């Protein structure tokens, strides 16, 4: 029984990660996506109509965190300061005063009342990607819109995965009548028209992001449950599960420690695609006006604006680019994950590893 002296132990997850890294486009997509997402999480520091730090008349201020009335800067009113106001700018530019603005001095909802061009304004030095038809800076809208889309997708996918895994695991592990009953429920639930439900719900309740999350997740978990169910049905008859049962192991432990890690492969592969689907769903609902409440930065609403203002090409072009870019990155990541977790490829890599 001669055996190649093997190196440090390698968990299947580590091997999959190694294969994922070998997939160049997917690996880079993941890096770029993570960087973009982290940047968008700090959007308040990158694109905001309030300065990050202000030094005025010998005092330090952090307007990002505190609402300061105009009187702070010797204005006339007790209303919150509009830092785009030329008067305030002039006050801050006085000697010994200074203010550090974020690179893009607009929030997604800030309207520049002092702009010189009519809205929608084409790209200028002041608005790098132009403005939309209400005078909001397009770059700021895209940044915040991207953030909310990705966050939305993450929450929806997490909820779907949680529900799908639980449902599919119970279905697949207990099989027989449990499986039949639960499968019939899925069929009934699946045949409900999702779009009409959304229209009905948006008429019944005040539109909000959390309502959208709940409704989209309520219909999205079934594809994941189907995969988990199939994996559990396959694995429950394998000898390692029999061996665990013969040891007298509890069912809960068999489900979660023995079968689940082996059933996760298709779910991990599905996650990027599920996220892309959620972003697409949110965008299309926003486009139709059934989605997020007004005032929420949203890619779908920008697309609708682009359609309404066909001559303002910068709106549709920029939004389209962001949307396609995001979906493309997710698809490439999903592709690489599928390759990395493919059992047949695993065998090939193992054979190559043995040869070395």
């Amino acid at each position: 029984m001669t055996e190649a002296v093997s190196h440090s132990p390698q968990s299947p997850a580590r091997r999959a990660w190694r294969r994922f890294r070998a997939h160049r486009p997917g690996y880079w997509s993941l890096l770029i996506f993570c960087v973009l997402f982290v940047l968008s999480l700090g959007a308040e520091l990158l694109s905001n109509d309030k300065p990050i730090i202000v030094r005025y008349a010998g005092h330090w201020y952090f307007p990002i965190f505190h609402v300061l009335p105009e009187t702070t800067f010797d204005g006339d009113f007790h209303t919150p300061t509009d830092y785009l106001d030329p008067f305030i700018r002039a006050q801050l530019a006085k000697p010994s005063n200074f203010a550090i603005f974020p690179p893009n001095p607009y929030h997604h909802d800030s309207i520049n009342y002092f702009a010189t061009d009519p809205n929608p304004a084409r790209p200028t030095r002041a608005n790098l990607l132009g403005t939309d038809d209400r005078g909001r800076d397009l770059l700021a809208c895209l940044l915040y819109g991207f953030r909310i889309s990705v966050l939305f997708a993450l929450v929806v996918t997490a909820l779907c995965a949680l529900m799908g895994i639980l449902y599919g695991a119970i279905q697949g592990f207990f099989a027989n009548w449990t499986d039949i009953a639960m499968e019939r429920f899925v069929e009934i639930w699946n045949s409900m028209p999702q779009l009409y439900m959304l229209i009905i719900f948006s008429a019944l309740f005040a539109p909000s992001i959390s309502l959208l999350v709940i409704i989209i997740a309520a219909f999205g978990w079934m594809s994941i449950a189907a995969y988990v169910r199939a994996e559990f049905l396959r694995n429950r008859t394998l000898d390692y599960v029999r061996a665990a049962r013969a040891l007298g192991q509890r069912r809960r432990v068999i489900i979660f420690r023995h079968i689940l890690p082996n059933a996760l492969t298709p779910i991990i592969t599905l996650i990027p695609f599920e996220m892309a689907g959620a972003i697409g769903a949110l965008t299309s609902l926003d486009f139709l006006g059934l989605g997020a409440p007004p005032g929420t930065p949203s890619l779908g609403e920008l697309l609708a604006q682009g359609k309404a203002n066909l001559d303002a090409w910068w709106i549709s072009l920029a939004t389209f680019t962001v949307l396609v870019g995001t979906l493309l990155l997710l698809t490439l990541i999903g592709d690489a994950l599928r390759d990395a977790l493919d059992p047949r490829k695993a065998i090939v890599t193992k054979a190559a590893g043995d040869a070395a």
Partner: protein
Amino acid sequence: MSLLSVRDLDIHFGTRRVVEKVSFSIKAGEKLALVGESGSGKTVTALSMMRLVESARLSGEILFEGRDVLSMPPDALRDLRGSKIAMIFQEPMTALNPVMTIGDQIVESLQLHKGLNRKDARMQAIAALKRVGVAEAARRVGSYPHQLSGGQRQRAMIAMALACGPQLLIADEPTTALDVTIRHQILDLLDQLRRETGMAILIITHDLNLVRRFADRVAVMERGVLVEQGATATVMNDPQHAYTRKLIASRPQRDVGLAGEGCVLEAQSVHVDYPVARPGLRGWVSKGRFTAVQAANFKLAPGETLGVIGESGSGKTSLALALLDLTPSSGDILINGANWKGQSRAQKRDLRRRLQVVFQDPLSSLSPRLTVEQIVGEGLEVHEKSLTLAQRRERVIGALHDVGLSENGLIEPLLARYPHEFSGGQRQRIAIARALIVKPTVVVLDEPTSALDVTIQQQVLQLLAELQRKYRLSYVLVTHDIEVVRAMAHRVMVMKDSRIVEAGTLEKVLNEPESDYTRELLNAI
């Protein structure tokens, strides 16, 4: 002049050399056996005779009827494959196209190589099936592969291979997937066809019994190198190379202790059946029952091994699962007098501790995503919750020591490894350690060595015998291999079609078998 001669054949996959300087030759009408364990390169070598391995790089010389195969243009190569050299495979179910009738598959190759029209080709296909002994050939010609039994399928494969009258037949483990009683029928058929047509046969196998029975000459391969070749009788009786000697010596040796008195496991009229779908409309309202085990009775003494032998489908694995209460059964199974039936969940868990199991395929019986320590230690987690982590690790190391698993004499570095990092024999040792760590009284061994190479097989059997003596274990040994039973069992039970056809002590069953079926089984080697 020889029909096929191979000189200094090297085969590379990428940068790895899997076959090294192999030379042999076959004369017309000769039977050459290529013997080796898995990974020895025997199959790759055989496939290379027709250049069938896509990704391999070949160098050296392969002459078929004096023509160099390695430099053949594609047209000549196509003519060579199928019409001059034909091949049959181990598993006919995957080698036959499942959506074509076997007749159509034979017709296809006849049309391709002999240019016959469809009607003539069909007549010849029926003749070919008759020749290989398929009953009712005219009807069977329209059957799909799944409608035939394993033996018939292998016959159909042979008919397909021989339809064009090849001069060389390459048979890759042609009997391994078949039940023992059918094996020698297929071998006899091959031999008879060889005599009729004068073709040569290159048979690839790991089974030395088969070589002794069948081959004129034998070539032994070890890790890509042909270590020894010669006439079968010479090589078998006077092996020159150390590896050949090891291979021949690896027939299971009997080395077991005496059985004790008493009864640790008793089965009383155990009956197992499964629901099966009925055909047609009746299937909508009722389910049929398939009976897997009927009226099984036996007793097992401490330190005793009960060999349960039978072919696939005889119900021996169903019986094993019923003993472990992993499949529903009727009748009574008593472990030290305690019945599975009517126990609470906690009491059942306690019973499980006394009855453990080792499965056939050590890869699928170990959770692929758990480490060795987690796998082996799991039983303690369930049954001895009071142990601290350090105590549990100590017990795990003890169990691994018992089964002789270590690396350079150390066990600790293995604890964090995953099953895929071990060889088949090592994985089976891990599975044995998992069963033994809870200190059972009975271990059910379900084909414990069938998935292993012959030399490893012997080591695992020795280990099992050693552990039996050390811990007074009782084994229920389920197998299809009479050699394994001969080496291990004290008593034998022969199963066929869900019934126990014969039971008794090893000596009695092997020397004075009562039922015809047992006799057939014993002669089938």
